[in-house]
């Protein structure tokens, strides 16, 4: 498939994630939108790695060009898993203190 289709698909998913962060107030939904944006970037990284592999395979049949992109996707998943564990702990603590997960309650720094 042309690489532009993958770019457009990833952009659409990323912008849906941005719209979720901007419009929803539930902290868990905002967190899920961030996961959606991370996944859009992962999809684009894999597509670009296969694009570079296609370019290099036209010259040399046996090569490992494009491995770095997929390793990077793996590390993005590692960081996302660590981020989710800490973030959900923060949301649970916020719910325990405020009895709500509405982000508009978190305006104490304003005063």
């Amino acid at each position, binding site marked *: 498939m042309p690489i532009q289709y993958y770019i457009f698909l990833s952009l659409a998913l990323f912008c849906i994630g941005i719209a979720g962060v901007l419009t929803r107030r539930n902290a868990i939904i905002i967190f899920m*939108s961030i996961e959606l944006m991370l996944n859009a970037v992962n999809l684009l990284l*894999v597509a670009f790695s*296969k694009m570079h592999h296609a370019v290099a395979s036209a010259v040399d049949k046996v090569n490992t060009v494009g491995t770095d992109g*997929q390793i990077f996707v793996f590390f993005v998943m590692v960081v996302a898993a660590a981020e989710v564990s800490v973030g959900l702990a*923060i949301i649970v603590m916020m719910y325990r203190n405020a009895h709500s997960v*509405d982000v508009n309650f978190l305006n104490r720094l304003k005063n």
Partner: protein
Amino acid sequence: MNVIQILFWFLSALALVSALMVLLSKNPVHSVLWLVGVFFAISGHYILLNAQFIAIVNLIVYAGAIMVLFLFVIMLMNLNKDTEPQKNIWMKLAGAISAGCFLMILVSLIKQAPELQAKTAMMKEGDIGLIGNLGKALFSTYVVPFEISSILFLSAMVGAVVIGKKD
């Protein structure tokens, strides 16, 4: 239109519709289930690109572990009903419009980029995404980041316990 193109369009439509339903559904449990649908569609894309290791890791880590964690938290806090208060409609409209403007700018930028014309992603062939190649790269070139990520996980675990502890 061959079978790969049909699968590509089907998975793309599934991913976009599920991602929209994540935002539009009122019940947080439904949002989580739609997000699992997005992850399955993206894993299908990875399989189409012959990135088998990433596809399986995406299913196990995201759809299997992270989403179950989200479901646990939602059910623990008893949020599975519509408790979100009504927000100002103009704020929602402003968020949607700004995201749409960002999308339009980036799409028009990509459309006229000369480096990306006539480039294609290799579908269903090429063996860089197989676990043998990725494992060799992970344990030779990238062994230091791999070990550092274990320290990251340890600190994340300690952080989650310290934050979530009742005191």
